[in-house]
Each structure stands twice: as C-alpha cells, then as structure tokens.
C-alpha cells in the first residue's frame, strides 16, 4: 500500500501511539477527578497544552482542546456571532474555505448575518486589498483559511492580521492543513483565533485545537462542566490530547527536515508526470504553497477514474470532486480558481507526509501516467 492522501488524514506516529497507550489501559482516570488517577490525567493534559503553546508561540492558557477542527471552526464563528453580532452585522471569509467554515457562514446568513465570500486569484490567493475594501463599519469577524486543503495555497494571513490590528474586528484562521507542515507563530500572524487538528500531523483523530488570544472573549459552544477553562465542557479525551501533544512536538522538532524532504517529493512528482504528460496543469501558488499538497489536472480524463485505477494498484490519492448519486460535483475550490467543471473533474490531489519516500513517488508517478494513457486509449 502507498498512502498519498495525507491532507485527508495521516498515519499516527509510532512514538505518539506509544505515549497514548497507557492512558487507555492503566491511567484511565477522569481529569476532573480529585484523586491521584485523575490529577495524573490532568497533568498529562497540561503537558500537551504546553507542547502546543511552545509549537504555536502562544501561552498555555490560550490553547483549548476540542473534538476536531470542524468544532474549533464552528466555535469561533458561532461564538463570535453570539457575543458580538446582531442581525445585519458582517463577517468576511473566502470562497475556498473548508466546509466547516462555509456551512457555518451559511447557517449564520440564515440568522441575519451578512457574509462576504472573497474571491481568489488563479493561484487560489485572497487579495489583501479585497479584504481591506470589504471591511464595513459593522464587520465583526474575518475568517480566512491559512493553507488550502485542496491546492495547498498559503494565504497572506500576517498581512491581513497587520491590516486588522488596529481595528475592532476579530481575526480567525483555519490552519488545519498548515500546522505541523510549516512554521506557525500566532503572534507574527496577528490572529485572535487559530484552528488545528491533530490527525493532520501524525496525531490521533478526534482532537481539535483552538488557539484563542487570552485577551479575547469567546462564549462556549458546548455547555456543561468546567473543563477547558470553563469554555468547552465535556470529559477530556486524555489519550488523544496526550497523543496530539507529542505529535505536534515531533512535527515541530523535525519541521525543516520534513519540509526539505517533502519539497523533493513534490518536485520529483511534478517533473516525472510532466515528462509523460506535458499538458498537465499544476494548481496552486508556485511560491506560497504547502510543501506536501499537489493538485494535478489532466486534460480529458476523469480524476475519479484515475483514483479508482490507482486504488486497484494499492495507491491512495483523492479527487477534485465528490461523487454523489453517480454524478460527481466539482470542487468549489477548483471552480473558484477558474478551472472549468471538466477540468475540476479531471483533477487529483496527491498529498505527502514524512513517511513517504522517493521510491513511492516513482511508483505513484508511473501508475498515474500509465492509468492516464489507459483511460485515453479506452475512450
């Protein structure tokens, strides 16, 4: 098996897994219990909080654990709306956000909030001037994805943060694809909120992270007990939180080494596929991009077809469309960067991780080129 769909999820690191096991077996206490088994669990959570604070250049009281990136995104959007917005107030986001942001915005629109969905250029970049020009007197929140999950384009978050710095507007970034893959410093980004998800950087599924600047208030989305500084109720997933902490520590400790490796895999993939298929389109921004996500568009061939043929060879990649009722719906991200519906449907995403190597790249590119030619031949 060759797994190259790491933007969807990643294999858990062996170290991370080993660190989690005791919290399933022996140290299974509830972190809210005031006896030794409980306080040990509480200490383990606080260690993880410290690991994230170090990784993101934040303080531990600014780190909150949730159940996933989608919950963190929902919390910011609905929390900000509940505490700051009245009907007719305004939120700015982009047209290429993850559905957890886009669908939250649609739900808020139904409650009377006005939403601006900023366009992106051919590379998938939001323009700073578009952000500036969209701000209104009643704009309460700006939420822009840091790095796109389909094409890997990195947005000018620090520049937008600088522009918003003197304005009374909350600024959130969904950094789910970025954290663990590129350096992140919340102070340099100038954000009030940042979302991450452990399973994107070799941690466990079921752990989301929300950075919230400590001078910013956010009302809870989940009410109940006093967990997470009384802002996110629910018994903590101790093993998952512990695993997430070690996963971010491991990622950050080896960050530059991983980036260098991923860039080599990226370049080799593009070079090899282009050699066989010269009219290949490489989507995304050649300069401002993640090192691990490749979005490739093939002329006259279905991305879903390519994915299924690769699947038969034990190679896992994803497509630029979601199959629904036998018809595939083109990706909103690929349509937003100006691809035609046919091009969007002819797109696959290959996303690498530190566990991939050059031998796998050779097998993937050989298979992609061979599958492409077979489909063309059999048409």
């Amino acid at each position, binding site marked *: 098996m060759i797994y190259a769909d790491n933007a969807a999820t990643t294999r858990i690191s062996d170290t991370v897994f080993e660190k989690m096991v005791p919290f399933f077996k022996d140290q299974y206490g509830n972190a809210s219990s005031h006896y030794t088994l409980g306080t040990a669990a509480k200490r383990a959570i606080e260690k993880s909080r410290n690991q994230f604070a170090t990784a993101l250049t934040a303080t531990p009281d600014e780190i909150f654990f949730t159940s996933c990136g989608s919950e963190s995104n929902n919390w910011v959007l609905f929390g900000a709306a509940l505490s700051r917005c009245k009907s007719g107030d305004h939120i700015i986001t982009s047209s290429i956000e993850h559905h957890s942001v886009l669908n939250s915005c649609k739900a808020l629109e139904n409650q009377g909030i006005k939403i601006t969905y900023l366009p992106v250029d051919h590379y998938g970049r939001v323009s700073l001037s578009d952000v500036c020009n969209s701000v209104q007197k009643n704009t309460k929140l700006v939420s822009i994805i840091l790095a796109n999950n389909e094409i890997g384009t990195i947005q000018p978050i620090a520049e937008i943060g600088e522009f918003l710095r003197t304005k009374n507007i909350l600024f959130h970034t969904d950094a789910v694809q970025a954290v663990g893959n590129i350096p992140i410093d919340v102070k340099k980004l100038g954000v009030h909120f940042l979302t991450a998800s452990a399973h994107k950087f070799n941690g466990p599924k079921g752990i989301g992270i929300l950075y919230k600047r400590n001078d910013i208030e956010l009302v809870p989305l989940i009410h109940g007990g006093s967990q997470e500084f009384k802002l996110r109720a629910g018994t903590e997933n101790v093993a998952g939180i512990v695993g997430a902490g070690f996963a971010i520590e491991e990622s950050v400790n080896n960050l530059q080494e991983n980036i260098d490796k991923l860039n080599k895999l990226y370049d080799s993939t593009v070079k090899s596929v282009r050699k066989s298929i010269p009219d290949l389109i490489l989507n995304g921004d050649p300069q401002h991009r993640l090192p691990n996500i490749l979005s490739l568009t093939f002329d006259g*061939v*279905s991305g*879903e*077809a390519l994915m*299924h*043929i690769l*699947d*038969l*060879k034990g190679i896992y990649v994803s497509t630029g469309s979601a*199959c629904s*009722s*036998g*018809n*595939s719906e083109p990706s909103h991200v690929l349509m937003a960067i100006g691809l035609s519906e046919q091009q969007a449907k002819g797109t696959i995403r290959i996303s690498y991780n530190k566990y991939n190597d050059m031998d796998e790249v050779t097998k993937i590119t050989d298979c992609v080129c061979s599958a492409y030619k*077979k*489909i063309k031949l*059999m*048409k």
Partner: protein
Amino acid sequence: MSKNIRCRFCDSDINRNTIGLNKKIFGEDQRKDRMMCIACMAGVLECSEEDLIEKINEFKNEGCPLFE
C-alpha cells in the same frame, strides 16, 4: 436495459453493474460501444477479476445508484 450493450473486445453481454464500473473506471462519459466486460477490463487494467468485483461491491455499499 443492459442486453444491448456488449463488450468491445469479446462481444459478451454486459450487465448493469459492469456498465457502472466502466463509468467509474473510464469516466462518466464512457460511450456504451467502448465498454468492456469484467474479464477484459481486468486484462486492460492488469488486475484480477476479483479485484473488480470487490470494487463493484464497494460502490454498491456506498449506495452509488450506478449499481444494483
């Protein structure tokens, strides 16, 4: 429905599930006169017929209406 569609290589009958698989593997727009049976498709794709039957079952389980 499927009785008019035959394998482009061996002329055998192609049933609804095989038509669905042709569309999945070669694209939604695959012409009926370019479709192939499971055995011939396995030869073209260099995989086993069992692999392709397993794929059909996966699509069925996902609820894809191309399969019955």
